[in-house]
């Protein structure tokens, strides 16, 4: 039996040894985690684990005992939109959108550690999320814009 927090709610359960967090989340119809590759290179399966961005398909369930897991579903309730999500829309950073939740999680992971990152840090933070649509130009702009707007406040 393991226990962890998923998007703020405690979860307890027993899991088969091979079950990954990715399998579990998709099974729970948390569809924001996406399949990109078996080895996690694409990062489309990202979650936050204790605030750090991780590949959910590389995390076996027994390794998340006592951890705090967040997915993009926790970023906004109902019709609310998180300002980082809003920045992605505003800046045209979304194309197909398949990797977008992961990009936002990767950025959030960085910003919790470094609230005023420069362009290089943002770029680095996205290096684990593959995107074949945007060339990363507008996603980086969106993250910088959001980071700067928070600084101003």
């Amino acid at each position, binding site marked *: 039996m393991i226990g962890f927090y998923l998007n703020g709610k405690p979860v307890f359960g027993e899991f088969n040894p091979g079950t990954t967090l990715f399998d579990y989340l998709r099974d729970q*119809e948390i569809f924001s985690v996406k399949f990109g590759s078996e080895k996690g290179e694409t990062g489309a399966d990202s979650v936050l684990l204790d605030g750090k961005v991780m590949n959910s398909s590389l995390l076996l369930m027994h390794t998340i005992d006592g951890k705090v897991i967040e997915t*993009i579903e926790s970023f906004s309730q109902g019709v609310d939109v998180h300002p980082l999500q809003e920045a992605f829309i505003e800046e045209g950073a979304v194309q197909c959108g398949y*990797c977008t939740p992961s990009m936002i999680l990767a950025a959030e992971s960085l910003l919790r550690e470094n609230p005023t990152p420069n362009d290089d840090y943002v770029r680095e933070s996205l290096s684990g999320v593959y995107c074949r649509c945007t*060339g990363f130009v507008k996603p980086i702009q969106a993250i910088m814009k959001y980071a700067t707007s928070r600084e101003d406040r």
Partner: protein
Amino acid sequence: MKVIGQKTKRVDGLGLVKGKPVFADDVPKKDFLYLKILRSPFAHAKITSIDYSKALEVEGVDLVLTHEDFKPIYYTTAGQGAPEPSPHDTLVLDSTVRFVGDRVAVVAGETLEAAEKATRLIEVKYEELPAIFDIEKSIGNQTLIHPDKEGFSFVFDPKNNIAANIDEELGDVEKALSESEFVFKNTYSTPYAQHAHIEPHISLSWLDENDRIVIRTATQVPHHVRRIVAEVLDIPIAKIRVIKPRIGGGFGSKQEIIGEELVAAVTLRTGRPARLEYTREEEFTAARSRHPQKVTFSIGLDKNLFINAIDMEILQNSGAYGPHALTVMSVSASKTLALYKSLNVRIKANSVYTNLPPAGAYRGYGAPQGFFALESMMDEIANDLNVNPIEFREKNYFQEGDEVPIAKVLGEGREGFPVILYTSGVRECIVEGKQLIDWNTLRVSEKTGIHRRGVGIATVAQGSGIAGIDMGAAYIKMNEDGSFNLNIGATDLGTGSDTAMAQIAAEILEVPVEKIIVYSSDTDLTPFDTGAYASSTTFITGGAVIKASEDIRNQILDQGMKLLDVEEAVIKDNYVVAANDDKISYQDICTKSFYTDHQKQIQAVSSHMSYDSPPPYNATFADVTVDTETGFVTVNKIVSVTDAGRIINPQMSEGQVEGAIPQSLGMALSEFMIFDEKGRPVNRDFGTYNIYTAIDMPEIVTKFIHTDEPTGPFGAKAVAEIPTNGPAPAVVNAIYNACGVRIRNLPITPEKILRGLGKLK
């Protein structure tokens, strides 16, 4: 204009940033059967027996399908308009396998694990056949990859392994070359390249309440999926509904029907929902890729350096099957030969079969290969003659008002239509780009020392839809609050076409974009559209949206005048306004039309096709640094300036260019497929197939110059594919400028650079 050309947020953006269940696989768990494909370990072999009794013993395995379970109906996996001009050389499952990764059998199990286990227990006996891996050795080889069979069509010459052929001439090329003052001839080659969309191919199917098959799939061509699945499974089109949800990238790869027919077959046999998702390895080894081409240009110039003759030869690798074999070569030729004027033009092209993975449609569709050759060649000629490479190009461009004769000869697998060039902004693109890359300084900067910096240019063209073939339709209906449903068969695969279509409707109906509710696409609910390929949606479907919107506008005006009881009125800000200032709102018009007065549904459906396919133009500039000790090339900056007519959505258009650039840079510098001596792909994951990530990206500058294309919606031309054509040749030309090394065979590797520098033998 209020909406066209203005910053407009994506209509589907909110759901995407929130991670809503909008993609094909994001459906609540059904009673799925999970499909797993057993794939060939051999590049070429005859299956002599398949014993799957042990596979069926695996708990949770319900069904195994082999070639014996399908009628031998030859088709093409290419999702093109009917009749598809690609070779019809493919069976759903065949008794011969033609590349490592070809389909042998399909297992359906209660879990993916059970299906996977069962595939390993299928006992297949193969008789290995000689295989062909070298395109130069395919024509005339004793080994025939597709011995002619009954039921084949559109295969050019199966006895010589030729999937498709083009042989066309305008004027007299031999004579013109012999009379030319200067003649240049060179060969350039491009390798396999992967689309690398992050969402793999995924198809789900189930029976609806009336036992019709519903296919929910990541496709660019829902209507072609419906038709081709009906054809290969021999069931009526009326029995199939294809739903295209949001798509996680396609770039041409999802113009193929390589999964929908299997899930549908399993659902038909079992009555159960079925699911097939490609693994990443299957994407690399058994999906589709860019056709490798060897392109030879012979170009003759008169003494004033005007082009006299262009002779283009293409030898293309189809791989084991022929999807898009003919039309990709046709585009390689028709787009490149539409850039520079020459009275004498010849194209000889063969697409040959090999026992390597089949290629297919990939953004640019032959134009990246063709322009890599042509724009390298133009640079080489200018260098050899010691003339300015830009002035040399400018001298030879087609001009506005010119007819481009090649377009008439090279259509979509049949005769095409003549193109009159109404708009060409290529010169303005060059002017802008030169400034942004700092051409004049970098071109002549010091080229000594270990690190040498240089700049290069490539100018390129594309089309806007397929002339005379592509057709899209739009349906619009009005709601009581003055909002409108816009249902289109067009397929937004991440490009933002739904948003562009909403902008067009909003502009004409004079409402904010938020009042347009877009739905795309579902073969039961949306009208026909050929699909998202050939840079067609804005140009073709946009034309349909204009017509339907204008029809609706007239109906609103008409109903408004009836309700106001006046003979004349105008539409202004959501109102029909009479001369006496009486007015009635959209809301009141629709509400009364529904419930009380002159009752009707205000609605319209329109379709659009075009005999024009106006070329967008682009000038791409590269700034590179070559490390002459390691041979490593660093791209510092790419400037991409595009004439796509009037821009409907500036932000999304920039996004198209920004995303295309790393795809081309990858083909030039970091991405390539390696095969061993048995034809087995060596690099089958993202760890060994290197696409550009955030930290690899150079500085990107995108810019648009404005033209007003008379044949396009609001003056628009296409933007989706053209930015993929320029970066690779621009980089190669920049490397030459930096260090004098000419790379004619992609990809550019440090080894090739060092060889060019004479530092490696």
